[in-house]
């Protein structure tokens, strides 16, 4: 793997790391497996791309994308809490619906962002080369998202979110409406995912309706990779592990793609299979380990 490919992978890891934080919030903190992300990532991309094309500031475009993502998350959470639809199914329904909505927003399957001002331009204006400017900006974004998430989970409201995922009966007895907390948590998660999608679109110069396929699996893989490396610690460690896991996951994928054995080489289309195997392995290894040590 070349240095250029490595920096590219780190950059991707930081970009998608913001999405992974969102997945961590639903999957680990709220215990709410949320597949909405496959739709809210391109939603964020679509909203920010259309906004920028209409002359809106690229940073404001990210805020708009986050608002859209928050609403998408709220829909999933409302389907689950108020209409009693199983969380997985509720999120799949929102995800499917978002496919149509995203095409409506973009008035087509994709929007190009070539030649318009993106969040990268102010950094480039400092004279930094593109290949360094992007990782630097996205590292700042990922760090900011992590700090905000860690702070939020230590507030009164954040503790209620943690408790809702851990022990709903307890937190109800402490006077918390768990439905409201789930709506807030899944909304925030998808706001982060949409922000990630908006940044990805601005970075790669296009938003595409299919760019969200496999987001949840990549997110889960990153969360699990991070936990394997940093262990199941507190909230702060968990959030850092999410970003770190995302970076390592993208580097590992880049390494796998540059792997060659004789005439055999992986193609980008093998990515889904590799990721699926990685997640299965990471999910089952603790079980197998426990069985072995239990003898």
């Amino acid at each position, binding site marked *: 793997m070349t240095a250029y490919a490595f920096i590219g992978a780190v950059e991707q890891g930081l970009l998608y790391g913001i999405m992974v934080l969102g997945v961590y919030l639903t999957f680990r903190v709220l215990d709410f497996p949320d597949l909405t992300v496959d739709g809210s990532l391109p939603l964020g991309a679509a909203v920010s791309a259309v906004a920028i094309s209409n002359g809106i500031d690229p940073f404001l475009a990210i805020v708009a994308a986050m608002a859209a993502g928050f609403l998408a998350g709220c829909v999933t959470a409302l389907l689950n809490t108020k209409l009693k639809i199983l969380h997985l199914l509720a999120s799949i329904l929102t995800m499917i619906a978002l496919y149509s909505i995203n095409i409506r927003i973009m008035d087509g399957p994709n929007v190009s962002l070539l030649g318009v001002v993106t969040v990268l331009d102010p950094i480039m204006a400092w004279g930094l080369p593109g290949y360094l400017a992007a990782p630097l900006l996205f590292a700042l974004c990922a760090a900011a998202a992590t700090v905000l998430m860690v702070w939020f989970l230590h507030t009164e409201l954040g503790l209620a979110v943690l408790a809702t995922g851990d022990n709903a009966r*307890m937190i*109800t007895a*402490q*006077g918390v*409406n768990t439905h409201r907390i789930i709506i807030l948590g899944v909304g925030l998660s998808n706001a982060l995912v949409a922000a990630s999608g908006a940044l990805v679109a601005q970075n790669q110069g296009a938003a595409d309706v299919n760019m969200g396929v496999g987001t949840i699996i990549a997110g889960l893989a990153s969360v699990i990779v991070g936990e394997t490396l940093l262990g199941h610690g507190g909230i702060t460690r968990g959030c850092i592990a999410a970003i770190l896991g995302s970076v390592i996951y993208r580097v590992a994928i880049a390494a796998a793609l540059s792997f060659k054995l004789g005439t055999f080489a992986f193609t980008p289309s093998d990515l889904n299979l590799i990721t699926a195997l990685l997640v299965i392995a990471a999910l089952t290894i603790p079980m197998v380990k426990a069985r072995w040590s239990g003898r």
Partner: protein
Amino acid sequence: MIRLARLTKRFHRGGVNEVMALDGIDLHIRPGDFVSIIGSNGAGKSTLLNCLAGTYAIDAGSIRLGGRDVTAWPEYRRAKLIGRVFQDPLVGTCAALSIEQNMALAIRRGRSRTLAWGVKKPDRGLFRTQLEILGLGLEDRLKSRVGLLSGGQRQALTMIMATLIEPEVLLLDEHTAALDPKTAAQILDLTHRIIETRGLTTLMVTHNMAQALSFGNRLIMLHRGRVILDVAGEEKAGLKVDDLLARFYSSQGEAFSSDRALLG
């Protein structure tokens, strides 16, 4: 303090397995009453507490707490007025959070939760003094995860958390049943001390008749969703386990000699 009128709750309504869990309960509990509730399995003791707390929706009747009609209030809203300790020691606390985080959650019971920092420095002193009452050394372990504590320690913490914000009503649902005898005795002693010193209005469900007799100023026996015995004050103080059993079996029209040893 608590007024229940014609409180009715059925399970599996309309089906062949329909059970009348609460059959038109009328009950008035005065401020400061410490009521022990006994009865056989399926008598409706836990159902009564769960209906009061709002965990179960009732089929008919009304519930008033402290002068307010709370019949239509959801569980989380009634939690403003109610402190609860459950039978399962794992239910009352949050295993993934630390002791101080759990207490920080409890100190906001019935108040709004904002983006203010969760565990506030001034509150820590209060947490410590409250935990010192337990004599378990938990005051020096504020940052320990609650999942690392034993069942008894968790139940003791739940007890403190339920009364951290003074509840108008304290509901104890067989809160010592899942503990070993020694720990159960400690928790009971703690319960007694907290309720006595603060004069809390309390409903305590128990399976243990001796416990029901030695605690509280009032005793209620439920059977098939009805109140079959309600004694207070002097009359209650004079009661013995045998009297309770006699009352229990006479209400059922069954002989009790064979079960005496078992239940006594």
